[in-house]
């Protein structure tokens, strides 16, 4: 059993919160550059150029890309042979507190959904834990903005809907979202599992890098087809009309109950942030 100090978790989470908010991934930058080549709308091109310039400023000056520094969604992949000394959940929240305070990141969390006030330090985090073989711990911080999260949806369909039903739902969800989630968007799709698990799958899908296809050729083809269909909608950058509505579509699946056909769409804005570290 390998022992890991909880201070390492605190420091790693704090660093990842800052890095995710300051440094947009090379995959997204590349997608903006490729989008510029394909975009037909002059306004759309202007916007993509602004996004490239914005990412550069944020990186150079260590300031957030977007003022909405997100809900801190933290994925913990815990090696079964690793043992954290102390309370790992408290360590993650301490890391979020430290990262958002010392990093000048906006605090956007309200303590109680109805009666609450801003917690002042962006805690608590949303923490998803998974166990993996080995003695390493992988931490991924994916700050999630509210505007795009609000355009997400879970649908309990019928097994008869099949893959065509999934496609119709995803495209309709993007069309109804229109300009609100800050296009060009990244679309996470979950299929299967249960009501709560399908939403997790859609969220997990957003951790992939733009351009990274599903390993199963069947779903890889559906991803490509959906991206094409979404970019034919005409919504464009910031919803003002254009070719580049989405940068990518990612599907994650899970076995389902014979009676159920859960599908979830989790929309991410163009600030598709996630940073990982292995301890």
């Amino acid at each position, binding site marked *: 059993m390998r022992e890991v100090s909880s201070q390492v978790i605190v420091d790693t989470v704090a660093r990842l919160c800052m890095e995710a908010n300051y440094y947009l991934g090379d995959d997204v930058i590349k997608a903006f550059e490729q989008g510029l080549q394909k975009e037909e709308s002059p306004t759309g091109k202007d916007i993509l150029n602004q996004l490239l310039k914005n990412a550069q400023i944020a990186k150079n000056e260590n300031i957030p890309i977007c003022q909405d520094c997100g809900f801190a969604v933290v994925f913990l992949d815990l090696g079964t042979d690793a043992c954290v000394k102390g309370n790992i959940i408290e360590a993650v929240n301490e890391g979020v507190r430290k990262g958002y305070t010392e990093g000048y*990141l906006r*605090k956007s969390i309200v303590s109680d959904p109805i009666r609450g006030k801003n917690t002042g330090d962006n805690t608590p985090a949303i923490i998803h834990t998974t166990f993996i073989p080995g003695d390493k711990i992988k931490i991924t911080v994916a700050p999630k903005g509210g505007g795009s999260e609000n355009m997400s949806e879970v649908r309990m369909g019928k097994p008869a809907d099949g893959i065509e039903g999934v496609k119709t739902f995803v495209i309709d969800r993007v069309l109804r979202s229109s300009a609100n989630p800050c296009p060009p968007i990244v679309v996470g799709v979950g299929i299967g599992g249960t009501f709560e698990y399908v939403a997790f799958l859609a969220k997990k899908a957003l951790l992939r890098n733009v351009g990274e296809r599903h390993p199963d050729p069947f779903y890889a083809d559906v991803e490509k087809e959906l991206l094409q269909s979404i970019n034919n909608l005409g919504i464009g950058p910031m919803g003002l009309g254009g070719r580049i509505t989405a940068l990518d579509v990612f599907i994650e699946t899970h076995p389902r109950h014979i009676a159920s056909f859960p599908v979830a769409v989790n929309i991410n804005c163009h600030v598709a942030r996630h940073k990982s570290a292995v301890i």
Partner: protein
Amino acid sequence: MTDAIRIKAPLTDDDVLKLKIGDSVLITGKIYTARDAAHKRLFELAQKGEKLPIELKGNVIYYAGPAPTKPGYIIGPAGPTTSGRCDPYTPTLLAHGLKGMIGKGVRSKEVRDAMQKYKAVYFTATGGAAALISKNIKAVKIVAYEDLGPEAIRELEVDNFPVIVANDAFGGDLYQEGIKKYKR
């Protein structure tokens, strides 16, 4: 954006009426930030006929809640938030003289109708380009609702703040027109 129209805030009816959807505009002058939490308070005061903490006549509201200000900076990154959350309160503010709004995303039919009735304009700024946008903000001061933190009302002095007209005072809607033009 070579052919941008330059305007000064606060706005007059004439300023508003010369703007059409799709116009690139550079705003210079004083504007106010307010998100839905601040709107709710303004709305409730207006309904009771009480005095508002800011003058709405001719003014522009920017739907924004900036990130904290780093030492040596005037303001933290400050891009637009989703305008739709302010829709339930907006017609009342327009009736009290609000002339311009800056945000992102589509507006309700009630807001678009009220914009025509009271002659107002809705601009969109680039969502998520918050670091870039903050460079056009030259001064900031909290003028109301400090307890709301990032959602407090701030008076901003902006210089050539870049926006696009998304809804004009004539019922034009760039979101609908844009999709029509580029849909395949």
